[in-house]
C-alpha cells in the first residue's frame, strides 16, 4: 500500500519550544530559518519563516512544519495548515503572558478548520508555572486536550505525537466519505 506523507503543524507563541520539538523528533536534518532576534524575546535566535523536519517510521513519513512564533508572521498559518492532518500548539507553562496569543491562534484555526489538535505544555519543570488544569481553564479546554512535554526528550515528544495521531484516526463517517470520493 502506498501512503502519502502525513503533515503535522507545530505552532505556538515565540519561545514555546517549537523548533526544539521538531529538532528532537526529526530523523533527518531539520531545515531551520533562524535569525538573530531583533527584539527582546528571551532568546538570541528565533524562527523567521518555518522549521521543517521529517520523521521516518517503518518506511512512512511524517512531515513536521513549525510556524514562526512572532506575530508579524501569522499569515504563515494559512500556508502551513494547508493539507495538515493535525495541529500541535505549544505553550510554555512559565510564560502566562503568551497564553492570550496562543488562545487567539487556537481559537481562530479550530473555529475555521476541523483539525485535530493537542495543547502541548512545555517548560513545566520551571520553578513557577501554571498547572495543566489552570491552563486548560484559561483555554476553555478539557484537561484531556493538554499534555505536558519536555521538547528536548525524544520519548516525550513521540508520546505527544502518538496522542495527536490517536485523534487523527478517521471516524467511520470519514472512511465512508473517502470511499465515496
Amino acid at each position, binding site marked *: 500500500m502506498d501512503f502519502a506523507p*502525513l503533515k503535522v503543524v507545530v505552532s505556538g507563541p515565540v519561545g514555546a519550544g517549537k523548533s526544539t520539538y521538531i529538532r528532537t523528533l526529526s530523523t533527518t536534518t531539520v531545515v531551520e530559518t533562524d535569525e538573530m532576534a531583533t527584539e527582546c524575546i528571551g532568546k538570541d535566535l528565533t524562527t523567521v519563516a518555518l522549521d521543517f523536519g521529517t520523521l521516518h517510521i517503518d518506511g512512512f513519513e511524517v512531515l513536521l512544519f513549525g510556524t514562526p512564533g512572532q506575530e508579524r508572521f501569522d499569515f504563515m498559518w494559512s500556508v502551513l495548515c494547508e493539507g495538515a492532518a493535525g495541529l500541535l500548539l505549544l505553550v510554555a507553562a512559565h510564560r502566562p503572558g503568551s497564553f492570550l496569543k496562543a488562545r487567539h491562534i487556537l481559537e481562530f484555526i479550530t473555529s475555521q478548520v476541523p483539525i485535530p489538535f493537542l495543547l502541548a505544555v512545555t517548560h513545566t519543570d520551571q520553578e513557577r*508555572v501554571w498547572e495543566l488544569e489552570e491552563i486548560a481553564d484559561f483555554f476553555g479546554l478539557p484537561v484531556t486536550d493538554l499534555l505536558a512535554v519536555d521538547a528536548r526528550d525524544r520519548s516525550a515528544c513521540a508520546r505527544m505525537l502518538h496522542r495527536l495521531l490517536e485523534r487523527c484516526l478517521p471516524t467511520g463517517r470519514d472512511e465512508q466519505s473517502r470511499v465515496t470520493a
Partner: protein
Amino acid sequence: MAIFGSFDEIPPAEALTATGAANGVFSFRRPPHLHELFLRGGLVVGWKEDGQLVEDIMQLHAHFAELVSVRDGTFQFRRAPAEQVSGPFEVPLRHILASGLAHQEEMSQSELPGPLTVFERIEHRDAWLGEELQVFWERAETRLRHGASAASLVEVTGASVGKAQQYLQRLRLVGMVRVRRLAPGTPARPRPPEARASWEATPHPEGDSISRADLTGIRPVVPSKPLVRRLMDGLARWFR
C-alpha cells in the same frame, strides 16, 4: 497550584475568570498598594486594600469598575479551603465583572479574538450586560445560536467589526458565549463573503495579525486508518 502574571499581559477580567469556581485569594499589587479578593465557589466574598476590609457593597462595585481597566501591576491566585475564605459579601464574580466591564473603555486589539473567530451562545446563561451590550446581544443572539463571528455580525447588529469583537469578548468574559470549534470530520467553514467585505472596509491597526491570515482553501487531510495505526505502532516503540 498557581495562577500568576501581570495585567499588561493578562487583563484583570481574564485573570479573574481563569480562577473558575475555585476557593482562594486573588491578590494583586500596584505599588504601593496590595489588594486581595476573597473568592469562594465563583462568589466574591471580600476585598481588602492594604489589609483594610471593604464593607460597603457600592465600594466593592467601584473597586471592580476600576480594576477591569487596570493594565499595570502583578497578580497571583492562591487556593485555600473554603472555610478560610470569608468576608461580608456573596456576589457572583461574573455579575460583578459584567458590571465593571460595562464601564470599561475599549480593550486593545491584542486582547480581542480575531474577527473571523466563531462564537456560540451558551444555553441557560444570563447576566446583566448594561444597555449597550444588551442591545448588541439582542440583535446577535439568534445568529450566535448557530455560531457567528464578529465579522459576520456586522450586518445584523450595525456594529463595526472592531466593536463586534469588543462585544463578543465581553460576552465571553461574563460567560454568555464560547468559541465554536469544528469537530474533526465536519466540513471546513467557508469564509462568508460579507465577512471579508466588512473586514476589508474596516480600518484595522498595525499589529492585528489575525486579519492577515487568509484561511481560504485550507482543508485538513483525513489520513487512512492503516497509515495512522502503523505510525502509532512505530512511535510507541520510542517511548515504551
